[in-house]
């Protein structure tokens, strides 16, 4: 398995990626603003809720799908507690209730937003659409 959850001394469950390519990253929870490198290239960001067990099933899906693009797409995986946190680093995000939330951006501009643990091919198709927009 290329990811795991590590329990900290204060009972937080931290996502750890092991031997994943550099274009797959765990992003910090609730940053004060969008990280500058999210403004460069195509990003697929998976925002999963800390209170949701099923959301975690999206993590291996995200890792599998982004590898199919061989580094053309960056993957960020970020935990959240409240949906408003997402809008701090992605003001265009609209989702208020559901999770996990997927955000596809191109050079910092949100080009797609959707929710759920999707079928792998459906997720590939959505990322592919973003790449075709870039072309």
């Amino acid at each position, binding site marked *: 398995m290329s990811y795991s959850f590590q329990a900290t001394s204060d009972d937080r469950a931290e996502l750890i990626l092991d031997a994943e390519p550099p274009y797959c990253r765990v992003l910090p929870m609730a940053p004060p603003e969008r990280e500058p490198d999210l403004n460069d290239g195509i990003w697929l960001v998976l925002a999963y809720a800390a209170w949701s067990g099923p959301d975690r099933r999206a993590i291996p899906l995200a890792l599998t799908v982004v590898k199919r693009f061989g580094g053309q797409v960056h993957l960020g995986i970020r935990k959240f*507690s409240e949906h408003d946190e997402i809008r701090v680093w992605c003001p265009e995000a609209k989702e208020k209730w559901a999770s996990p939330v997927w955000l596809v951006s191109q050079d910092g501009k949100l080009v797609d937003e959707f929710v759920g643990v999707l079928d792998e091919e459906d997720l590939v198709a959505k990322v592919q659409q973003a790449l075709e927009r870039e072309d």
Partner: protein
Amino acid sequence: MIHIDIGGEGKYPAAINLNPSPTTTIGIGAPVGIPIPNHVAGIGESMPFADDFAEIIMVESTPIYPATAREIARVIKPGGRIRLFHPTDSSTPYGHLAHQDVIQAVGGKSYTYNSADGTTTTLIIAP
């Protein structure tokens, strides 16, 4: 027997699924976008149910806000059962940490256990 699944999407066939979305969103058990069976529009913080309405209330992988805890205490029948299930993760106050809020709001007897798989389950029997 009235069974409410707060945030439910149809996992429990007999449950009323209280959910702000009329269609599935998680994509596990049913594809995203399928109508939720036994759906009632609403959220746990303000449930559209009378006092002492339900024998069973469940919250699984759905946030428990302070108002949710108060609403569970209002809607559960005397002697009713409550089941709470969340990842064990103190990054959020609305997951397993909020189980204590529900225990305090409802009273009665409660049992909490942490599983090796990183989840916390709380069972409460309302007074």
